[in-house]
């Protein structure tokens, strides 16, 4: 199994710089708005944005405006405002109780619980049940540690199949 250093090295190798001379892909930008499109293969039919032909980018120094995080979450995951607020407003504050979050954001606690579970379903949060001293459990919602998940998956694979998964 590769160690962390070789994994990081492999990740760094995955970075690809835009090469306008490549015939494998092209980047087009709209002359009227911020829309940028990556086209793989031939440009047929020609790329267009709101019925205006897009222009092929030939400058590697092109600047792409960073998208708004809320807009990305909304468009990618279909999260409404309450889900976005919960996702973005509790980072680094914790541990917080769901009641604290509800009071801070002005939502019902049931709304907080519903969207926490929605965020779990979307893979943006992880839910862990913790035992209560007086019986029962409390649900702790926390960030998904992608690096740890990758390490644990590799270890589980190695344990199950007795070797490297790659």
């Amino acid at each position: 199994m590769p160690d962390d250093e070789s994994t990081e090295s492999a990740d760094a190798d995955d970075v690809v710089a835009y090469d306008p001379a490549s015939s494998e892909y092209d980047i087009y930008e709209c002359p009227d708005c911020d829309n940028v499109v990556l086209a793989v293969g031939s440009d047929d039919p020609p790329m267009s944005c709101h019925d205006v032909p897009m222009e092929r980018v030939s400058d590697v120094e092109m600047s792409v405006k960073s998208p708004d995080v809320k807009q990305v979450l909304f468009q990618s995951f279909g999260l409404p405002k309450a889900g976005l607020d919960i996702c973005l407003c509790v980072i680094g504050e914790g541990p917080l109780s769901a009641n604290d979050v509800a009071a801070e954001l002005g939502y019902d606690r049931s709304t907080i619980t519903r969207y926490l579970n929605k965020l779990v379903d979307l893979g943006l949060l992880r839910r862990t049940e913790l035992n209560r001293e007086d019986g029962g459990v409390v649900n702790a919602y926390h960030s998904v540690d992608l690096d740890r998940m990758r390490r644990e998956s590799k270890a589980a694979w190695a344990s199950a199949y007795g070797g490297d998964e790659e």
Partner: protein
Amino acid sequence: MTVTRRDVLAALATETDADRETTTSVGALASALDADDRAVEGHLRDLDACEFARFDATGDVRVTITGEAFLELDLDAEDVAVVDVETDDEER
């Protein structure tokens, strides 16, 4: 000195024990953290709401087994962490 809620929980877990139910005072915990008493007590009240800390009748406090289990998740400081505790009304 500014102290985070996670710092307070970690210190509480060091100074007390859930199984043996050993406790500490808010003042002693604040001294251990070199932090303001009121700031530490505020965090402890919030941790109590998460069932990670428990006050006794004298005002002393200890970590709970729930708090110890939460620390074992070993989350980073910037990670999201929300604890949803069911109320008695919901359990009925």
